[in-house]
């Protein structure tokens, strides 16, 4: 068989890979903000929960987390289908890394900005929403971009809990054709291309956002 014969199956797998990447990226982005802001909260309980979540998911292995969610949760009466388990597992894992990005970016916003918001009598919510987060967001983008690539790579692991994404489709094709070198090379190239596409998108988004922020500052 030639490369052209492999492509339809691999592209199907790539489509599943993309879906899982995007869904778990959205979940992890939400968790990043919740846990990142929780991490700097004044309330001891919220801070502790955020720290526990971050340390737990950063400290253990993503494959174990996936297996745990997929094989152990049923013991507690929570049975998730593989697809949901994959999205939740990846989202929870990357969210814990993203939380540190959010925290770092917020901490790096100049002190004067906080003081100005205080002087203008902003509520805490308004201060974060209108002053701190928009500025911090620009510096979050490059690390988020890196984590998006990490997430894309981590999706290959969900083949081990039987999801027919790109790696899984590749392995199936190998079982049928034994053309190991060709198919694994193709897999690597497809992952590489998706990753390049993602980092291109993130970079142009970052450029746009930066320009917009600069314009806002210039116009007052």
């Amino acid at each position, binding site marked *: 068989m030639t490369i052209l014969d492999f492509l339809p199956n691999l592209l199907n797998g790539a489509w599943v890979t993309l879906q899982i990447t995007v869904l778990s990226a959205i979940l992890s982005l939400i968790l990043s903000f919740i846990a990142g802001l929780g991490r700097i909260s004044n309330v001891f309980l919220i801070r502790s929960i955020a720290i526990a979540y971050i340390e737990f998911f950063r400290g253990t*292995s993503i*494959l174990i987390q996936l297996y745990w969610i997929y094989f*152990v949760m049923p013991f507690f009466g929570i049975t998730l289908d593989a697809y949901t388990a994959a999205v939740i597992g990846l989202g929870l894992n990357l969210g814990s890394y993203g939380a540190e990005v959010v925290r770092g970016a917020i901490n790096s916003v100049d002190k004067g900005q906080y003081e100005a918001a205080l002087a203008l009598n902003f509520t805490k919510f308004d201060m974060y929403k209108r002053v701190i987060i928009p500025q911090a967001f620009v510096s979050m983008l490059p690390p988020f971009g890196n984590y998006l690539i990490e997430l894309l790579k981590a999706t290959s692991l969900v083949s081990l809990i039987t999801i027919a994404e790109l790696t899984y489709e590749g392995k199936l094709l190998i079982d049928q054709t034994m053309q*190991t070198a060709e198919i*694994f*090379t193709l897999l690597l190239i497809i*992952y*590489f291309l998706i*990753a390049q596409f993602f*980092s291109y998108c993130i970079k142009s988004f970052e450029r746009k956002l930066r320009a917009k922020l600069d314009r806002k500052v210039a116009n007052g």
Partner: protein
Amino acid sequence: MDELYWDWDYTKEILPDLLDALHITINATLIGSLIALILGLVFALLRRSKYKIISKSTGFIIEFVRSTPLLVQIYFLYYVFPDYGVDMSPFMTGVIAIALHYAAYMSEVYRTGIEGIDNGQWEASIALNLSPYRTYKDVIIPQAIPPVIPALGNYIVAMFKETPQLSAITVLEMMQMAKILGSENFRYLEPFTIVGLLFLLISLVAAFCIKKVEKALPKNGIALK
């Protein structure tokens, strides 16, 4: 739900096997990080080569390895090596795959370290007529590496957390052992949880040690004697 309890007898029964497998996990991490630490430096230096073809192609290899999944790289080496007559144990194949993957990440760390060296140091080496080899060995590397030790350490911890992927090519590390024990006894709760806790414990201790090292290192470069 009669499964909803933690079985301590079962825990006692499987713990020795899991601890044996922990040895393999740790061996893989240690051998892998040794290779990655050396290879990463080689990549970083090749990337600085004055020959465009070498620096450009090294840059491409680093980018390629960094943006493709480790699991596929492990499969690639495991299934493709034998076709070319390279016969290695799954353990060694897996360790080489992980080491290659992290060498790509570490090379970027070394690069930041080297780029952080003041221009004056290069100029002084030229003035002293040092060869490029001696410039790197005696002037640049000794100053470039200490500040990046914590970052390198973080990658070793990250590498440790990726070793469960070796189970995909039948290496009997902790994850594989947990899977085997779980399927033998139809109970995954204890083996998977214990493995998770062991990983958590070791990562937290390692992260704590890295923080200590970070504090012990001088902030701006190393003190000159």
